[in-house]
């Protein structure tokens, strides 16, 4: 366990987020069970008021998740001198088996909270709360994940023990500590480049088609999600190489550092923003025909598509620009 202010802050946030999640989830369950828009009873009025509370809590959770995601990575990076062989966040997260799962679940929770807020936004625009069931079922999916995130984070930080000098001898030789490998499993770069650019092209084309014709929303949503995964793999495989100008350094975290102009924040923000809007478009697809939302959802979807397209375009432009002008040429 490391008693460091940033670690304490992260644990505090995990605790608050899990607590707020459980609270919101409890009222979500009650709303799911007792919701009856036709009734004018006291109970129903109370539940309607509760929906405001739940959506406020969720928007706070989303913003806390986003901020703490970057704080988590930055803290992992900050802690790397404490471990033999760790060069950056990649090494710190590999210190025990909870590091990477915690990171992944943080990303997943952020994406889900974003999608929830999109659904919530659409729902609030309809006068009769048409999406209430979907919304709270999604919430029930999210709450356990928020709790799991907190548990993983606690497990991770509890299991982290810095390699410091002990009284008997230099710690390095007191036990057989092998250095952590900072390298992550790499995919070959040429196939990844093809996959990345064709994924972006398919997403772009289906997005434009949807924007103009209002059709093939599922295709767009799926392709934007797949492209997100491909893009993350591409960052590992080849994109970061162009930034580091080093053919062997595959770390996705060093991009966030000052040496590279904090470009990583921008890259990841565009990717996350794009995929949240992309998934959101798909999630709203089944409700295009719902009575009170018939005019509202297509408009929201067009805006979401535009967000995804802009984000992904920016990401591709930066990547492409770096690939062309980087001092590194991959054979």
């Amino acid at each position, binding site marked *: 366990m*490391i*008693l*460091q*202010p*940033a*670690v*304490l*802050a*992260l644990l*505090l*946030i995990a605790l*608050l987020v899990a607590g*707020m999640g459980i609270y919101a989830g409890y009222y979500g369950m009650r709303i799911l069970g007792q919701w009856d828009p036709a009734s004018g009873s006291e109970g129903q009025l109370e539940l309607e*008021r509760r929906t*405001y*509370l739940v959506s*406020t*809590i969720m928007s*706070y959770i989303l913003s*806390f998740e986003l*901020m*703490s995601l970057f*704080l988590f990575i*930055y803290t992992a990076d*900050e802690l790397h*001198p*404490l471990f*033999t062989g760790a060069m950056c966040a990649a090494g710190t997260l590999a210190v025990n088996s909870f590091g990477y799962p915690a990171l992944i679940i943080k990303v997943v929770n952020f994406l889900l909270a974003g999608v929830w807020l999109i659904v919530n936004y659409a729902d*609030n625009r309809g006068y009769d709360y048409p999406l209430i069931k979907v919304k709270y079922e999604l919430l029930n999916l999210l709450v356990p994940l928020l709790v799991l995130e907190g548990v993983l984070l606690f497990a991770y930080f509890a299991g982290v023990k*810095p*390699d*410091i*000098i002990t009284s*008997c*001898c*230099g*710690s*390095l*030789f007191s036990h057989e500590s092998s250095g952590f490998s900072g390298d992550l499993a790499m995919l070959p770069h040429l196939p990844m480049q093809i996959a990345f650019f064709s994924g972006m092209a398919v997403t772009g084309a289906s997005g434009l088609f949807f924007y103009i014709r209002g059709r093939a929303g599922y295709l767009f949503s799926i392709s934007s999600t797949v492209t997100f995964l491909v893009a993350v793999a591409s960052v590992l495989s080849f994109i970061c190489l162009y930034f580091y100008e080093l053919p062997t350094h595959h770390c996705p975290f060093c991009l966030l550092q000052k040496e590279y102009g904090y470009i990583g924040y921008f890259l990841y923000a565009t990717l996350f923003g794009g995929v949240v809007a992309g998934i959101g478009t798909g999630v709203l697809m089944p409700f295009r025909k719902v009575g009170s939302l018939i005019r509202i959802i297509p408009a929201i979807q067009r805006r979401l598509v535009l967000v995804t397209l802009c984000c992904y375009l920016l990401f591709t432009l930066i990547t492409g620009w770096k690939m062309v002008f980087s001092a590194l040429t991959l054979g």
Partner: protein
Amino acid sequence: MKRAIERHLNILEFTLASLLRRKAKNFSLLAMYLMVVFMLASLQFFVTALKREAAIILDDAPDMVVQRLTAGRQDLVPTGHAAEIARIRGVTAVRPRLWGYYYDALNGANYTVMAGDDTSAKTESASIGSGVAKARNLAVGDLLPLIGYDKAPVMVEIGTIFPSGSDLIAADLIIISPANFQRLFNLPGGQATDLAVTVRNPKELATVAAKIAELFPGSRPILKSEIQRTYQSVFDWRGGMTLMILASALLSFIIFAWDKATGLSAEERKEIGILKSIGWETSDVLLLKFWEGIVISLTAFLLGTILAYGHVFFLSAPLFVQALKGWSVIYPRFQLVPVVDAYQLAVLFFLTVVPYTTATIIPCWRAATTDPDAAMRY
């Protein structure tokens, strides 16, 4: 887009006016908030600045120090080991070091005495830190009497006094010639306190250390990175401990904030009632409350960090010095070099603004959802 921004601006304007209308209540909240931010920010700034200071000093430390252990205690190293270590591939230099502590009965201080490498200097000459100079009232050219192991006086002449800029390393330092060192401490011949090893390629340090440990089973090689890591952990730990103590203050502040947010005054209740009856929606009132929180939080956060900056970097953190610095008769006086980065501020933000915001969500929602008629009837 423009309309949305205008809506926010209008609500913000209303918020400011309504906050000012209840000066007493809001200022007391602000003062508490500010104090919490101030304490935590001072702590954070202070620990980071100390860590930075330690890192800068350790940068000049030798790559590796080889000590010898006898019965689990540090012992003298035969200088003969140096030649054998120098033969290990990758080692560029091995320097036996002679150093120890000298207790000065006159003022109860401990000095760090080191034998210098400079062979051209006179045997009697010594260089001292400004802390020693101050404690013994010495100037360049003065004689400093030291008492040897056999109670025989050893006179050294002050050649140089280190500038006070190097106080953190050199305040209590006395550098004398090896001959004088011998007269002072009478070490057995051919022995050194430890060996400083330089290795050309830092990546080979671990291998070289393993070879040394194998060659001399009683030896303890300590890498610079290990020392750095230990210092960082120690400072983090001290900061974390103090933070845990301050956690109770944070907690009581959160309860205070919760209480303030829950206990709406009759006037506020009426205000919300009127707003709702003239057409404000629940979401508008929530937005109003959101902006209220932002205004209070940001004011407290900015003022608190600015005050903490002054407290730590201009006044040298009088409130924390005792807890975090440690003590000694000759304590180096140093002005901390200001280091503030976005990371520290983010951590602070998470430790103060996030809990405050969380504590006020439910009270704000409760205020925003009261029925207009119920609110006005109070």
